[in-house]
Every structure is written in structure tokens, then in C-alpha cells.
């Protein structure tokens, strides 16, 4: 099939309209409120002073924010580095058909279905050295493990929890991508004498590009906004070891009622995610541009 371009049709906007209205209702008005706050000093609901970009400047200088941002970047990077390869490996090792495939799919998806605060709570117990399976096991193996006392342990526990919680998302997407590769590709590769690695590198990986893009972006966005689980598990501690951006934001907005700075911070936060996603999105688009043009199946 040769590359076909989509016909231009401005009426298509009517099809977009419902989505536009729904999302705009939930996004644009609140966003405007946030923008409005971010340029005012709200002393009381009746008394507001326009302060321009003062909050933005203040937020940008905030040392705590820098720490939280750095923490966040390390965490999101680690999440992607572990979950994407692990999810792919998992998808590759899942059975293709039959009751085993069904059972595996359901078991793998279970962790996705648990409310986030429950996830945190389970791990809170699970990791405790006195009464939790993981904590007790580590203890018995002679590791002095404490996610409440040791900053590194806390960080690793949050990471492990996230891996447990979200790798299935990557795996499900990658699995679906793998299943859509026609058998002929595997046959041809066998005829061509391709090694297992070559099959992965030249067939499976390129064919999974699309779903992996969804997976990478989703995991990046969501890990960058992670709030509930670490909040429940560690409360951000010990110290600030597991205080991520959204937690810091919530502390500001809810805890200290600094609406102006919190709003400014929200916007900066949003722009950071947007920037990263934009870069990732374009990078991955370009990475496989030619593949996309040619995909007939």
C-alpha cells in the first residue's frame, strides 16, 4: 500500500465537538482559575492584589522545589528504565493463546485495579519488618531494612511499589502489540535464519513502537504526577527522600493555603510535564517515522 494522505474535511470538527466541550468544561475553566490565582495575592476571598509574575519568580527560586523536581526526575527516569524493559520482557514471555494466556492476563492486570491509597497501605504493611511479608523476609535474609528510617530504602520501596503497580500497564500494551504481528513475519525470519535477538530487534520492537509510545508517555506522565501511593506509604519521608512534586504542590496549596504561589507552581509543573512529553512524543515519532508510513497491517 502506498502512503495515502487523509482528505481535508473541516466538517470533521463537528465530530470533535463533543470531546471538545467535555474536556473544555473540565479543563479550560479550572485552568483559567489557576492562571487567575497565579497572578494575585489572595489575602482573603474579598481582598486580592494583582502581583504579576511575582509568584512565578518566587517559585522558580524556591530551593525546596528544586529538590522536589530533582527527586521527581530521578524517580520518573528510574520508573521508565525499569518498567519499559520489564514490561516488554513480560509481554514476550506471556503465553499467546489458551486458558494460560487468559489467566496470565487477569493476574497481571490485578495490581492495576487496586485503588491507589490501598496500594500504599498494603505496601506499608507488606514492607514492615515485624509483620510484613517483604520486610520480614528481608530481615531474615540479614538485611537491615526499614523504609521509614532509611532514605534509600524508602526511595527504593516507592520505586518497587510503582514497578509492581504499573509494569502491568506496559506489559498489557506491549502484549497487545505483539499479538498483532502476523505469523508471516516470524516465518520469514526463520527462513532468513534470523536469531532470536534479530527477531526482537528487527520485527517485534519496530512493530511495538506505537504501543510502546503510548506506554512510555503514560508512564512518564503518571509517574511525574505520582501522589497517593508514596503519600500513604512514606508520607514523603524520611526527611524529603520521597517527596515528589505533586506532594510538594499539595502541601503548598492545601497545607499552607498559599493559593497564589501554589497556582503559579501548578502552572510551572504543568509546563514541565508538557515540555518533557512534547520532547518524548516528537523523539519517538521521528524514531520510527518511516515505519509508520509503511505499516500496512
Amino acid at each position, binding site marked *: 500500500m502506498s502512503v495515502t494522505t*487523509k482528505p481535508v*474535511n473541516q*466538517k*470533521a470538527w463537528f*465530530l*470533535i465537538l*463533543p*470531546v471538545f466541550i*467535555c*474536556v473544555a468544561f*473540565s*479543563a479550560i475553566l479550572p485552568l483559567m482559575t*489557576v492562571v487567575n490565582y497565579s497572578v494575585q495575592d489572595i489575602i482573603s476571598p474579598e481582598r486580592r492584589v494583582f502581583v504579576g509574575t511575582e509568584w512565578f519568580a518566587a517559585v522558580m527560586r524556591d530551593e525546596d522545589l528544586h529538590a522536589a523536581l530533582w527527586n521527581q526526575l530521578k524517580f520518573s527516569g528510574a520508573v521508565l528504565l525499569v518498567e519499559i524493559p520489564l514490561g516488554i520482557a*513480560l509481554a514476550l*514471555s*506471556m503465553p499467546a493463546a489458551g486458558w494460560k*494466556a*487468559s489467566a*496470565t*492476563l487477569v493476574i*497481571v*492486570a*490485578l*495490581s*492495576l*485495579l*487496586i*485503588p*491507589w491509597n*490501598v496500594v500504599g*497501605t*498494603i505496601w506499608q*504493611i507488606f514492607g514492615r519488618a515485624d*509483620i*510484613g*511479608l*517483604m520486610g*520480614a523476609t528481608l530481615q531474615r535474609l540479614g538485611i537491615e531494612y526499614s523504609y521509614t528510617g532509611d532514605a534509600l530504602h524508602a526511595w527504593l520501596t516507592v520505586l518497587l511499589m510503582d514497578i*509492581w503497580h504499573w509494569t502491568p500497564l506496559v506489559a498489557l500494551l506491549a*502484549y*497487545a*502489540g505483539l*499479538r*498483532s504481528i502476523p505469523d508471516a513475519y516470524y516465518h520469514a525470519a526463520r527462513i532468513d535464519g534470523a536469531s*532470536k535477538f534479530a527477531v526482537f530487534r528487527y520485527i517485534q520492537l519496530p*512493530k511495538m513502537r506505537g*504501543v510502546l*509510545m*503510548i506506554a512510555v*508517555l*503514560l508512564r512518564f*506522565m503518571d509517574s*511525574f504526577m505520582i*501522589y497517593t501511593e508514596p503519600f500513604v506509604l512514606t508520607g514523603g519521608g524520611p526527611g524529603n527522600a520521597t517527596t515528589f512534586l505533586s506532594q510538594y504542590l499539595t502541601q503548598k496549596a*492545601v497545607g499552607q493555603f498559599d493559593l497564589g504561589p501554589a497556582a503559579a507552581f501548578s502552572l510551572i*509543573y*504543568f509546563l514541565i*510535564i*508538557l515540555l518533557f*512529553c512534547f520532547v518524548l512524543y516528537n523523539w519517538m515519532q521521528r524514531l520510527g517515522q518511516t515505519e509508520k508510513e509503511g505499516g500496512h497491517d
Partner: protein
Amino acid sequence: MTDRRFKKRTIFLIAYLIFALLPIYWMVNMSFKTNQEILSSFSLLPQAFTWDNYKTIFTDESWYSGYINSLIYVAINTTISLTVALPAAYAFSRYSFLGDKHVFFWLLTNRMTPPAVFLLPFFQLYTTVGLMDTHLAVALAHLLFNVPLAVWILEGFMSGIPREIDETAYIDGYSFPRFFITIFLPLIKAGVGVAAFFCFMFSWVELLLARTLTSVNAKPIVATMTRTVSASGMDWATLAAAGVLTIVPGAIVIWFVRHYIAKGFAMGRV
């Protein structure tokens, strides 16, 4: 050769499944214990097996109504998400129009907004329009992240359907709505299944917005659970039982869409 390779994969898979199940096993284990037992000793199986935690949930209205509330707004949300996302995804996959790429990316950006950012504005907005503490409020708020996702997934599926099918149908005299419902929709039902699962899941597990926008009448199960943290300490056992029960509806949903996932999700994007 192949056998050994197969074995390695199976061992890896089993290892992962065990890793995936251990915390869940621990939760189930806890749900059959008393709080006292949970906190006092380490045991792989409940020593004093009890159904009390489940009884609490099924007999206390504030508990079980949480499930009902959650199911209601999740159902509303999933229905609205799919209904609006289907035509939009069709437009994105079939036509180019002014600003299409920008709108598509703008939709995605809504998925990138930390819910924490919107907590307060949402609260104010829904108070103003009088939707506070209704199922609809939560359902609408969750559209923010579910609609973009649904559009994204469905667009992938639709791009995999050759455009000749549309053209043939128009030549045969089908109107757009009739074509869409009787011909196109059955072709992408796998996509609809997968999109529905993801909408269900993300709406079901979201806590921040759901808790902020409800107080009594529409209080979701995720918020009810936070009740277990009280002045008298954590009610671990009931929370664990509630957690086990929250998995059930989702597990049922995934059981229904499992074949769709296996049969080639995202054919177009691949």
C-alpha cells in the same frame, strides 16, 4: 534449544506472577485476620480466621454504598468517555482539518495535568454549578483524563481499518450514523473493549478528585476507605477486606475484554 529458551521464559513469567501476587496475597491474608493479629504477629496464614471484616462491609451502609457510588460514576464516566471519544477518534483517523494535530496534542496534555492542580478550581466550579456531591460531578471530572486516553486508543484501532470500507458503505447508500453503528463499530469492538477497560480502571482507582468532589451522597469507596484511618488508629483489617473487594469488579471487566487485548490492540498504530 527452543526448549531451554521456553523454560527460561516460563521461569521468568512465573517469577513475575509470584511477585505480582505476593502483595495481593498479603492483602487477602490480612482481610481474614483481626486488627490485633495483623499488628501483633507475623503469620503466613490467619491464625484466628474471621469473616468479620467482610461482614462489616456488607452490613454497614456507609461501606457498601461506597461501592455502589463508585460503580455509578465509573459507569457514567465510561459511557460518556466512549460516546464522545468514538466520533472524535473517527475524525482524527480519517480526516485532516484545521488544527487537528494541535487539538490531538492538546487533548493529551489534559492527561498530563496533575489532579492536585485542579482540586481547588474543580471544587469551586462544581460548587458554582451545583454539582457538588453528585455522581455526575466525579464522572465529569474524570473525563479530563479518560476522554483523551479513549480518543488515543480508539484512534489507533480505527487507523487500522482500511478507508475503502467507509467509501464502499457510502457508495452503498449508508448514512454516516448508520454506517458508523452497523458497520464500523463492530469492526473496532476490540478497541472499544480495551478503551472501556482503561477508562473503567483509571476512574475506579482515582482518589483525589473523587474525594474532593463528594461528601456524603456520592462518596466513593476509595474515599470511604480513608475512613479507616481514624483517631483510634488504622483499621487495617477492614481496609484489606475493602481492598480485596475493589479488585473484583475490575477483574470481571478484564475477564470480558481479555480476548480483545490478546487479539491485536492497536493494529493501526503498530
